[in-house]
């Protein structure tokens, strides 16, 4: 902790953590929707990995997966709403049986379609076919790559996953992903591998670029560094390791009012595997539905209206810590 943080945290251990809505009120900040431009689609909690920082607790034994009917309802919603970005996440989206249909139909419905990948869900011929599908439809790949250090990465994501990720990144580079001018965008996401906050995104991107190029000739377009949300499996780990309170305090004391303007929930709506709407994927994990009551995607005429209030909780400090989370 540097003196600046010490200044913010003076006497912190003696007082409770301020509820997020109080913090907003004190700063006279009204958190409400602007124009909703992104539809995030969570296709389910099934995943080949059981990452220790996962806010959703996704894993191989989860059965929540988007059905063909819900997928069609989501596609119809995207068609009538005309979002600028469609962002497919999970779990591991690769493992949803309807993912190919979703990608094929959604790719013509927005200028930008992106998919979150853990880089380890598929291998062999299945992975090659998957990469071909993404390439053919110009899908942006946003890949989890927490650390340049194998031990740190594997401690978060499971033994062997660092090398699998490196292997997948090489495959993606081989077909043109990550290179300027190919139109095939490959972005990396780094989350801290413990109870600490991420560093400056620009500095991390610079270092990741240098090290990955030197070590394996791997290239990518952008790196995003995000704090871990104290939810799901990560919250359990924080609790078991005795880090929960100090982590929450750290997030709260790093509140940056300027970051509120850019938080994702102002411009994004998240739809869960069963078709219900949330202000973001973290609210989905907390089961805090958009507008305070469960609304199904099939009942939505278009994007949520600007000015709609956003449901908040303690976890919202994740997105307002430091430079923020978009």
């Amino acid at each position, binding site marked *: *902790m*540097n*003196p*600046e*943080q*010490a*200044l913010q*945290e*003076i*006497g*912190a*251990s003696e007082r409770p953590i301020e509820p997020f809505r109080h913090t907003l009120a004190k700063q006279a900040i009204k958190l409400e929707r602007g124009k909703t431009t992104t539809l995030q689609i969570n296709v389910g909690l099934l995943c080949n990995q059981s990452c220790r920082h996962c806010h959703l607790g996704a894993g191989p034994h989860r059965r929540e997966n988007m059905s063909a009917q819900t997928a069609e309802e989501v596609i119809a919603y995207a068609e009538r709403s005309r979002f600028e970005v469609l962002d497919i996440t999970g779990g591991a989206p690769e493992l949803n049986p309807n993912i190919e249909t979703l990608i094929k139909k959604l790719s013509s419905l927005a200028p930008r379609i992106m998919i979150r990948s853990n880089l380890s869900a598929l291998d062999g011929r299945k992975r090659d076919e998957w990469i071909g599908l993404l390439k053919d439809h110009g899908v942006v790949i946003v890949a989890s790559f927490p*650390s*340049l*250090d194998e*031990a*740190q990465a594997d401690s978060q994501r499971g033994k062997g996953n660092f090398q699998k990720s490196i292997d997948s990144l090489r495959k993606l580079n081989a077909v043109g992903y990550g290179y300027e001018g190919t139109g095939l965008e490959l972005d990396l996401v780094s989350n*801290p*591998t*413990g109870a*600490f*906050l*991420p*560093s*400056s995104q620009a*500095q*991390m991107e610079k*270092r990741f670029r240098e090290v990955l190029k030197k070590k394996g000739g791997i290239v990518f377009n952008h790196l995003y560094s995000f704090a871990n949300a104290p939810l799901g499996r990560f919250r359990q780990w924080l609790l078991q390791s005795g880090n929960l309170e100090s982590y929450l305090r750290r997030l709260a004391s790093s509140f940056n009012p300027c970051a509120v303007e850019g938080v994702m929930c102002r411009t994004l709506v998240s739809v869960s595997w069963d078709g219900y709407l949330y202000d973001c994927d973290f609210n989905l994990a907390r089961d805090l539905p958009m507008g305070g009551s469960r609304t199904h995607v099939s009942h939505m005429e278009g994007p949520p209206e600007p000015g709609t209030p956003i449901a908040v909780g303690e976890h919202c400090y994740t997105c307002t810590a430091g430079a923020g989370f978009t």
Partner: protein
Amino acid sequence: METYYKPEDLPKFVEIGKEAPDLAKKFFEYYNAVFAEGALTEREKALIALAVAHAVQCPYCIDAFTQACFEKGSNLAEMTEAIHVVTAIRGGASLVHGVQMRNIAQKISM
């Protein structure tokens, strides 16, 4: 057991400014400027700080800069090597004074 060093005292560091606010302000501004990216990266500076923290044996600094090193992207191997660097210098500083011992011994011996 009572101890002089308590983790909850670290956030009280700033209270040092209560009796001499101008000096504290200058110190904290200088401190923050030192750790900002310059010719050295923030990551490199945090590693140096971690090593020095061990040399000066400051539990507060070890706590703070272990965390800072992780946040800036260092790994445990790098952090351990940084401590070895400062240990080598600290040990070497003792050993090199052996030259003085030898000089004196030579002077007073027949």
